[in-house]
Every structure is written in structure tokens, then in C-alpha cells.
């Protein structure tokens, strides 16, 4: 236990800032990720997730601050950190005019993976990703989900210690996402540290810890459970035939802290759920919306996010 406590953080980010012209993409961001964690970066577009990922991957330099992977300073020894790192950029970064097998071979060779190990790992990873049948297909002819899984296979061909995934499952079908996460869980078991950014709240919930990023700053950082506990107020789910009308009806009602349209229902954040429910019912009835049902629910990460940042910042 003490050895684990003394081991350096897998990822250490210390007051990192980066600006592009007038835009401060990342502002004084600090956090650490322990070995074996799945750490999630959540935030709306333009929050600075990709910039932060690129800085961690050593392909972009920060203007200020320090980044260390496995105790090695990324700025001082970028090439050394790259030996134990895998980075999957947001945009598909493999060669579309090369086959699945050729891409794997290429990345295995760049990381000096022995031939025998390459064959064994590639067979195992392709099976896990459901890509065995596509070895000889050009990467450009794979579906979006298969491409992302191939990206993961190439990223894992050399046993990285830290895996950086920038929105790896955006545009990926549910089945492929399930395969994807099965592989990630398997990796966590073997002690690989995973840092990923995601726009999907259900994925955010699967992370061991989450950083909510907004306008280049971290607004909250904790486990999903504790983030939800820390949300100010409580949540009511409102269901009815016309969710938009329901939302508009409760806008500005006393005790309502926030309203969020979630598909066919409305999440109402209130300061005191039991006490406010009768008044809210009455207000709806007065507007001809008495058919609506109202129930107390546990908040999701999205609710926490919106509560922290305002509805304009929904990821």
C-alpha cells in the first residue's frame, strides 16, 4: 500500500495554460491521475479538452505550467514519455489507404514491438474489437465505429502505461461503444491509466473520476457519485404530453433553480423537492397541464454540469 502511495501519479498536470491568439484555450488547469484510473474530461465544445489532450500527448507545448507522465516531465523529455504513451486524436489519425493489418504493423514497429508479441496482441485486440474479419480491409473503408476501434487497437499494440483518448466514441454506434468500453475496463485491470474526453454523459458516469471543463478551466473534479451529491438542490422529473410547454410553464416559478429539457421529459432542479411540489402542481394545473406527472429522481452528470455552469453550457 505504501509503495502505491509513493508511486508517482500516472498523470500530473500543474497550472497548465495555453492560449491561441486572444483565446485562452486552457487556463491554469491542475489535476493528477492515479495509476489504473479512468479519468474523464467533460465539457462543451471549445472547453479546452482537445488542447489539454494535445499538451499531455506532447504534440503541443503549454505556454505555462508543467505536465508529467509517470513522473517524467513531458516538456523536458517529450520523447521518453512517448515511449509509454498512446494517443488517439479526435480526428481519425490512421492511414485510410492502408489496411487494418498494415496500420497495426506500422504502429507496432514505431513502438518497437517484437514480431511475436505483435502477432499475439494484434490477434487478441482484433478479437476484442470484433475486427478479425477485416484485417485486409482498407482503414478508409471501415465504418465510423470500426475505425475508432482500430484506432484503439493501434494505440494498444505496444502496452502503453498511459492512454489518452480524445472523444474516442463520438459518432460510434452503441454496439461498438460497448466493445470499446469492454476493452477499456480490461485495460484498467492490467493497470493502464486512461484519460479520455467524452461528450456522452453515460460514458462520463463510467469514469472513476471526472473533471468538468468549461472555458479552459476546471469547474469541478470528483468521482461521478460525489459530483452528483454535491449538486445544489434536488431533482424532479416532469413527464407529460408536451415537455416544452411544461418547461415554459415552470420558468421563473418560486424555488425552481433550473430547467432542462431531456428528451420527452423535463428535469426540474428545485431548492426543496417535497415542499415545492404542491405549488408546482398547482401552477401546471392553472395552465391546463394538470396531466403531467412529477417524481423525485437522482441527478445525472449532465444535471450536475448544467447546475454548475448554467444551461448554456450543456456539453
Amino acid at each position, binding site marked *: 500500500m505504501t509503495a502505491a502511495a509513493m508511486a508517482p501519479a500516472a498523470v500530473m498536470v500543474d497550472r497548465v495554460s495555453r492560449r491561441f491568439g486572444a483565446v485562452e484555450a486552457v487556463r491554469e488547469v491542475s489535476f493528477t491521475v492515479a495509476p489504473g484510473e479512468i479519468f474523464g474530461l467533460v465539457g462543451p465544445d471549445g472547453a479546452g479538452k482537445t488542447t489539454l489532450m*494535445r499538451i499531455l*500527448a*506532447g*504534440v*503541443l*507545448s503549454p505556454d505555462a505550467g508543467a505536465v508529467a507522465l509517470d513522473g517524467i516531465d513531458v516538456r523536458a523529455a*517529450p*520523447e*521518453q514519455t*512517448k*515511449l509509454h*504513451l*498512446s*494517443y*488517439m*486524436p479526435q*480526428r*481519425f*489519425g*490512421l*492511414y*485510410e*489507404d*492502408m*489496411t487494418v*493489418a*498494415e496500420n497495426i*504493423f*506500422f*504502429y507496432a*514497429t*514505431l*513502438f*518497437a*514491438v*517484437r*514480431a*511475436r*508479441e*505483435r502477432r499475439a496482441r494484434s490477434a487478441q485486440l482484433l478479437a476484442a474489437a470484433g475486427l478479425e474479419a477485416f484485417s485486409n480491409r482498407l482503414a478508409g473503408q471501415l465504418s465510423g465505429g470500426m475505425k475508432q476501434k482500430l484506432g484503439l487497437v493501434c494505440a494498444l499494440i*505496444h502496452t502503453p502505461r498511459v492512454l489518452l483518448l480524445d472523444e474516442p466514441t463520438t459518432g460510434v454506434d452503441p454496439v461498438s461503444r460497448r466493445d470499446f468500453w469492454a476493452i477499456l475496463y480490461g485495460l484498467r485491470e492490467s493497470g493502464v491509466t486512461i484519460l479520455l474526453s467524452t461528450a456522452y454523459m453515460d460514458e462520463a458516469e463510467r469514469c472513476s473520476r471526472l473533471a468538468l471543463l468549461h472555458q479552459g478551466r476546471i469547474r469541478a473534479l470528483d468521482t461521478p457519485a460525489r459530483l452528483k451529491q454535491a449538486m445544489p438542490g434536488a431533482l424532479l422529473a416532469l413527464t407529460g404530453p408536451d415537455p416544452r410547454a411544461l418547461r415554459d410553464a415552470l420558468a421563473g416559478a418560486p424555488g425552481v433553480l433550473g430547467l432542462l429539457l431531456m428528451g420527452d421529459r423535463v428535469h426540474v432542479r428545485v431548492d426543496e423537492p417535497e415542499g415545492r411540489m404542491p405549488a408546482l402542481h398547482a401552477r401546471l394545473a392553472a395552465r391546463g397541464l394538470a396531466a403531467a406527472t412529477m417524481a423525485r429522481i437522482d441527478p445525472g452528470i449532465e444535471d450536475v454540469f448544467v447546475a454548475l455552469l448554467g444551461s448554456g453550457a450543456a456539453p
Partner: protein
Amino acid sequence: MSSCIWLPATRPRRGRDAVSPGRLLAIAFKEILQVWRDPRSLAIALLMPLMQMVMLGYGVSLDIRHVPLCVFDQENSQTSRAVAQRFVAAGWFAASARLGSDQAVHEAMDRAACIGAAVIPADFSRRLDSTGGSPLQIVFDATDANTTNIAIGYAQGVVALISNQLEARWAAAHGGPATRAGMVDLEPRVWFNEGLESRYFIIPGVVAVILALVGAQLTSLTVSREWERGTMEQLISTPVTPFEVMAGKLLPYFLIGIFDAAFCLLAARFWFAVPFRGDFATLLITTALFLIVVLAIGYLISVRVRSQLGASQVALLVTMLPTTLLSGYTFPIDQMPAPIRALSLMVYPRYFVTILRAVFLKGSGLAGLIGPVLGLVAYAVVVLWLAGRAFHKRLD
């Protein structure tokens, strides 16, 4: 694809900053696959040299054959007809028409029916017989001054020939000294290109020009392709070093370049029948040297310009004009004004044009070519040094 024949697996810890042959070859291998599957690159690699060899090889010629020549024979005697016939017999002129008046000559020139007209005076034979000499006028359309100059040269040759024969005849008829022609025996001899074939002179230059253009085009796509297709970001997150990227990317194009060079040189020797008097080693060494310069320049452009189209345009612009104008492959450098001559020292193909001509026609070896070879070596060192520093594993 046989994948694991030439790649030794290495321990991951190795190769922090050291060059890893495995990574270098992986880049080269990938590049070969990509060129093979990219119609555009393949066309540049294989079709462009062929097309340019045909176009430049046949299109650029300083020789003039069958210059259309009108004859205005005012005398129409046996002698005058023989004179007119001699122009055609030499092969440089084609008698297009016999005309009957000055007016007709003017019209024929206006219609471009001929660009030269031989005007034989009415007293041609009589003056020859009485005085041993007669004027003969040749009028040229000098709109195309270059062609005209060459045609005038040919005409002078023909006239000198005729005049020699007539002198000999006159001397024999008048019992003078046996032959004046025999006494002044001027026999011009041209070295290296005995037939004065401009083809021999131009084709080696054409090969140099093609390699300069094709080589830079090839590598101009190589780095810009990675930026454009979004593969660069992932590539630079791996331990591959900038040197491995450069060497790995230049290697396949070097092989393609050698292939193209062999194709062009063989075409020069066997299709265009340019005599080859040099040795193979000199040819190989200088060609390799030139390819390194050319490919590294394309690579430099590719690193700087992040789109394929842009890089290819820049490469075309940077190589095409200086190469065609200042390499001396058609326009002789020693006839340029001094500042332009100085500028041409910067134009690397000029060294290779000089080398190829000398190797083909004079049979020069490395020792005899020390000047242009050193020029290329200096260029290669500078360009490789710049190329090695140009690429950074950074997005910004």
C-alpha cells in the same frame, strides 16, 4: 504483404534519441504503400517522366531541317538551276517554289510559304565566266530571328560549297593555278558533337530537367499528405524521430528517382541515340547526388506547406522556372548577362546539366567534373541540413 522479413524487433526502452532502423524502415514501407495506392503520386512517379521525355525530347530542338526556300531564278540557266539544286541537296532547305518576280517573293513570304528566298541574278553565269564571281542574294524572313540565324549559317555553308566548286571550274577553264580551293583547305571540325546535332546537346539536359521537376513533385506531397489527411497528429505522438521521418520518407522516393533516372537515361541513349562515352559509376554517383538535392528540396517545401496542392504548386514554381530558364539546358549560360550568370550558380540543375552532357558526350569522369560535382555536394549538404531541422514533432 510479407511483413516481418526485414524488421528486427527491438526492446522498447531502446532508441530514445538514437536512430532506429526499424522505425525508419516502417516509415519507408508505409510511404511505398501509399504511393502505390495513390494514383496521383503514381502518375507523377511513372507517367510524368515518360511524358516529359517525349515532349521535351522531341519538342525542344535547335536543329532546323527543310527550311522552306523559294527560288527566284532570273537567269534560268543550267548553272543557276544547279545552284538552286545544291541548296536542297544539302538537306537543310526544301525548295518550295520557283518564283518569277520580286513581287511573288514578297507574297510568298507574307503567306509564310517560305522563310528564305534565293535570288539568282539574270547575268549570273555570264559574270561567273567573265570575272569569276557573281553576287547571289538570299532574303530571309527574320521574324523568328533564331531560326533565321541558323538558316543563314546553313546558307553560308551551302554557298561556300558552291563557290569552291565554281572556283575550281573557273580556274581549270582559265588555266590558272590548279585549284584555289585545294590550296586553302579549310576544314572545320566540330568536337564531341560531330554532326552538330543539337539533340545530343539537349537530351542530356532534358533528363536533368525532368529529374529536377519530378523529384521535387514527388516529395512535395509526402509530409503535406500527412497534415492534410490528419495522420500527422498521431504520428508525432509516437517515439519516431524527425530524422527517421525525413530519411524514411526520402528513401522510397530516392529509389523511385533512381528508377526514373534509369528510364530517362536509357531513353536518351537508345531512343534518342545520344552517344554515351562516359562511365557508369560517374553517372550513378552524380545522379544519386542530384536526386538527394532535388528530393530534399521537395521535402523542405512539403514540411512548410501543409496542403498537398499548395506544396505541389510551390514545388512546381520553385523548380520549373529556374530550371528551364537558367539551367543552361536550352539557353546557353555563357551568353547570359553577368548578373544572370551569377544567379544561375544558385540553380542546382545547371550543375547536373553540365555533368550529364560531359559524361555523355565527352566521357568525363568525376575528376574532370570536380567543379559541378562540388557544386552539387555543397547544395546537398545545405539542403539536407535545412531539411533535417525543418520538421518538428509539434502541431504549432
